[in-house]
Every structure is written in C-alpha cells, then in structure tokens.
C-alpha cells in the first residue's frame, strides 16, 4: 500500500515536471511562430473589444433614426464623423453595431464549440476507452451526422427549432460534435495502448482515475487544436445562419444578419453597410485560423497537412 502511494506520488511529480516543460516548450514554439502570434493578437483584440463594447462603441447600437438612414462614414468628409463607418438601413451606427456584434459572434462561436467539445470528449472517450459495441454504436451515429454538409444540418435543425441565437449555438454545437468525437477517439485509442496506462491498471487504478488523470490530459493537445479551428468554423456558420435569417433575432447586432439586411441596399450604392460586417467576420475567422494552425504546429506536428 505504502509502496503504491510512493509510486503514484512519484509518477505524479514526474507528470507535473513533464507537463511544465511541455508547456514552456509549447509557448516557446508558439512565440516563434509569427503567424500564430498575429492570430493570437487578432483574437485577443476581438475579445477585448467584445468585453469593452459599451465603452468603445461611439453610439447606441440600437438607436434608429430615419434622418440618418444609409449615411456614408469618414471617407465622405468631416461632417460624417459622428458615424465613422456610416449607418445602416435603419439609421443605426454601423461601427457600434459591429463592436457589439463582436460579443454576439464570439459568444456563439465559443459556446457552440464548448458544447461540441463537452459532448465530443464524452462520446470519444467512452467509445475509445470502453470499445466493443458502445464504440461501434457511437461511431455509426457519428457517421450519420457526417452525411450532412455542416451548414445543411444546422439549417435543418434551425428549421425545427426556429430562429434565435441560443438555438443557433445549440444547432452548431450539435453539428461540430461528431468531428470532435472522432478527434478525441483517435487520440484516446493511441494513449490507451501506452505502457503507463497498463502500469496504472496493474496498480489497480479505477477507470475514472485512468480517464481523468492519464487519458484526458494526454488527449488535450488535439482537442485544443481542433476546438480553436472549430471556433472559426462556428463563427462562419453562425454568420451564415444569421445571413439566412435563421440566427440572431433583430435587433440584436450580429454580423451575418447585418450583412443580409444590407444586401438590398448594396445595389443602390450603400456598399459600406455590407462590406464592414463581412470584414469583421473575415478577420475573426482569419485570426482563429492562424492561431489554430500555429497551435497545431506547436502541440501536435503530426496533424500538419
């Protein structure tokens, strides 16, 4: 008994040491990767903008006014400084709506991916660790969900649930679960065969201890990489749902629905109302893609395409 305890303690300390060096390695790798740092800066800026939206936005994002409909922004001259990026079809300040929209889009992206990560981890670990029929069953379900293009599945779910931001989070969360489950599963399948897991089993460790202390920490790298890239996809899909009128309900400032509202005015020359929300989406997604690629190179070089 005493021996076991010492062994476990020792392995625990060794684990911690190994992890701390792995972490510093990781930060070193990430710092060296210029494009990943650019991505990180873009994302941190967006997070700060989202948090400080009430202080950064020059105007009330919901304030309508007929007299300021579709006014251009700073490029039209000094008189237009009140609305730096112009106004939308209801006379609302575009810049303020984009700033507040950062909150909407980032939270949809993060929460949807959080949902998919929790369920993906659950399904992936259970399937890979216990194997046999549970694994077969779970993977067949995953196969079925894989038979849909992601946007089609979220549209279908939204058709049943009805429009709304929370529902969009759920729909996208469901859509991203199968891929996460596969990523987790393949990582766990490898880890499960490692000698140290054998050793733990020989020491009489319970399933939950093995899963929580040994399998999950070691499966984290691909999960972090994949979830970062998923947030990019989730933001794009949420914007697409918003664009189709199935996402955030008006008057919530949301980039996708801002784009779709401005669509019909594009042809009358009000290009700004459709251009800037799209640029915001693109930069958010670009930042996450850069960061995700960098994380992949730093954490799990084997995943490199």
């Amino acid at each position, binding site marked *: 008994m005493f021996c076991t305890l010492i062994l476990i303690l020792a392995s625990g300390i060794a684990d911690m040491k190994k992890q701390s060096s792995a972490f510093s390695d990781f930060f070193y790798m990430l710092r060296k990767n210029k494009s990943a740092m650019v991505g990180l800066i873009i994302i941190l800026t967006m997070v700060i903008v989202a948090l400080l939206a009430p202080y950064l936005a020059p105007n009330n994002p919901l304030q309508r006014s007929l007299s300021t409909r579709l006014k251009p922004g700073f490029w039209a001259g000094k008189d237009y400084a009140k609305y730096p990026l112009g106004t939308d079809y209801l006379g609302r300040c575009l810049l303020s709506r984009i700033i507040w929209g950062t909150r909407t889009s980032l939270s949809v992206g993060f929460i949807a991916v959080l949902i998919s990560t929790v369920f993906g981890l659950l399904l992936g670990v259970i399937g890979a660790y216990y194997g046999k029929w549970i694994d077969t069953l779970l993977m*067949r*379900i995953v*196969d*079925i*969900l894989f*038979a*849909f*293009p*992601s*946007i*089609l599945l979220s*549209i*279908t*779910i*939204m*058709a*049943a*649930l*009805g429009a709304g931001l929370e529902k969009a989070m759920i729909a996208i969360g469901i859509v991203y679960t199968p891929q996460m489950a596969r990523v987790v599963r393949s990582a766990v399948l490898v880890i499960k065969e490692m000698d140290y897991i054998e050793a733990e089993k020989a020491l009489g460790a319970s399933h939950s201890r093995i899963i929580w202390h040994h399998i999950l920490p070691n499966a984290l790298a691909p999960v972090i990489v994949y979830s970062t890239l998923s947030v*990019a996809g989730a933001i*794009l899909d949420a*914007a*697409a749902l918003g*664009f*189709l*009128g*199935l996402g955030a309900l008006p008057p919530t400032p949301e980039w*996708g629905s801002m*784009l*779709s509202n401005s*669509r019909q005015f*594009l*042809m009358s*020359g009000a*290009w700004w109302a*459709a*251009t800037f*929300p*799209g640029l915001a*989406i*693109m*930069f958010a*997604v*670009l930042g996450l*893609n*850069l960061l995700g690629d960098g994380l992949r190179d730093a954490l799990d070089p084997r995943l490199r*395409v």
Partner: protein
Amino acid sequence: MKKYILKRLLLLIPVLIGVSILVFVIVRLTPGDPARVLAGEHATEEYVQATRERWGLDQPMYMQYYIWFKSLLRGDLGRSIATHSPVIEEILNRFPATLELSLFAMVLAILIGILAGIISAVHQYSFFDYFSMSIALFGISMPVFWLGLMLMFVFGLWLDILPISGRINVSIPFQNITGLYVLDSLLTFNWRALGSSLLHLVLPGIALGTIPMAMIARITRSSMLEVIRQDFIRTERAKGLPEKSVIYKHALKNALIPIITVIGMEFGLLLGGAILTETVFAWPGLGRYTVDAVYARDYPAIQGSVLFIAFLFVIVNLITDVLYAYINPRIRYR
C-alpha cells in the same frame, strides 16, 4: 478493388437509413400539428382530420416513419405544401442548376488552385508564393455570401460588366434538354446562349470556388514541397530532363494523392457553399430550394431536399474514398 467498393456500398445502407431517421425526427420535432400544416392554414377541421388519416399521422411515430420510408423507397418524397407538386420532381428540376454551378466552380478551383500551388512550391518564399498564399489564407476565412455580395457590387454594379442573378439572359431563345445550360447550348449550337450562360456562371462560380481554390492551392504547395526535395527528383534533374517535365510530369504525379483527397472533400463541401451562393445570386438550384422551403415551413420539401443533398454528399464522399484507394493501394488492405 471490386471487393472494397462493394464493402463501402454495403456500409452506405445503414448510414442512409440513419440519415432518413434523423431527418424524419428533426422535422417531426417541430412544434405544431403536422396535419394542420399539411392541410394548409385555412383548412376546415374535417379536412385536417382527413389529412391526418391520409398521411397516417394519427398512428404512432414508428408507424409514421415506416409509412414515410416505404414511399421513400419508391422515390416518393411527398408533395410540396407550397406548390402541391411532387417534391422529387421539383428537386430533379433544380438539381442540374446546382450541378452546373458546382462543376464550374470546381473546374475553376482545380485549375487555378493547382497551378498557383505548383508555382508557389517551385518558387518557395518568392513574392508570388507569399502573395498567393496570403490570398489563399484570406480565401478560406471569407464568408461565401459576403464574397458573393462584394463580387456583385464590384463587377455587377460598379464596373457593370457581369450579370449578377439568374442563369441566362431570358430574352435569348433557348432549348432546355439536360438542364445544364452550357451543355444544352453546345448541343444546339446556340452560341449566344452559351455566352450568356457562361457569363452568368462567372460571379457565383468565383464565389463558390474560392474556398476550394484556396484549399487546393495550399495542399498542392505543401505536397509539392515535400516531393521536390526527394532523391528521385534530384536524379531526374541530374539526368538532364527539362525542368518543366520534372515538375509537371514526375513531381506532380507523386504529389497528387493528398491533392485528390482535398478535391474530393471540397467537392462535398461545395454542396454546403452552394446553399449560400445560390441564395445570394438568385440561382435557381437545390440550395435555394432548400432555403425557400425552410422559409415557407414546407416540411415535405425540407425533408426531401435535405435527404437528397445528404445522399449526394455521401455519394461524393464515397467516390473520393474509392478514388483515393485506387491511387493509394495501401488503403484497400486496411
């Protein structure tokens, strides 16, 4: 190889049955009485009851599914609530438009993507390399529908050189044979129609093709970079083979496996992008049909088109896997 294809086809059956169950359940989860929806808003109580019995909606869920699945096997997807015509007919009428757009986008993506990828790899770290890879990076980060709108604005309104909606100039006399307008105009030697339908394809084609183009360019570059560093390439250069033949014949051939995999994957993903592109450009295809069905809460049409697209998606993925196994025999024996 035959055995592998047969195995994959058999594995498809449970997946497709699962897909049909999933679509059925999702649509049935919708709040509200499906019989009332089917009968229409202003139907009498008797008519709603009759509709309920006719479609078996008074029976338990699994019986309803059984009835629906049986008609599905006969190719009957029910009738659209909005137009009262059979859903399968409407889908088949619109499918050629989506097919034509996807093929056009994919040809564009493959030609430009592979070429840009090869040049970037051969001239690694050159201006062209940085330039095309930055464009590719922006390309995969852009929302399809936004790119579509921007293209519409620049080329349709500002420069006014390309059409921004529809498939063909309706004033041109045109005979529809296959539903693929480019092919039909070629078959009937109708040059004006050919020109018009090609012009109409340009903007939606670029919008839809940009993401696959970017992905193909990136994978071609990294795959080529790996191959041109290998010994056999050095040997060929040493043998004095012309550089063009080394790159385009020998290196490209060996770099092709990951490229083809990505092309297949992207072809499947195009079906998703088509939904958004068709909405932006008023392209009368399957994607727009699905979105319109969702707006109109036309449940038989939603069920039918979602099933049809999922079916196409599964088939495209299967073809990709088979092609992959064909060029990379190691896969087959796993």
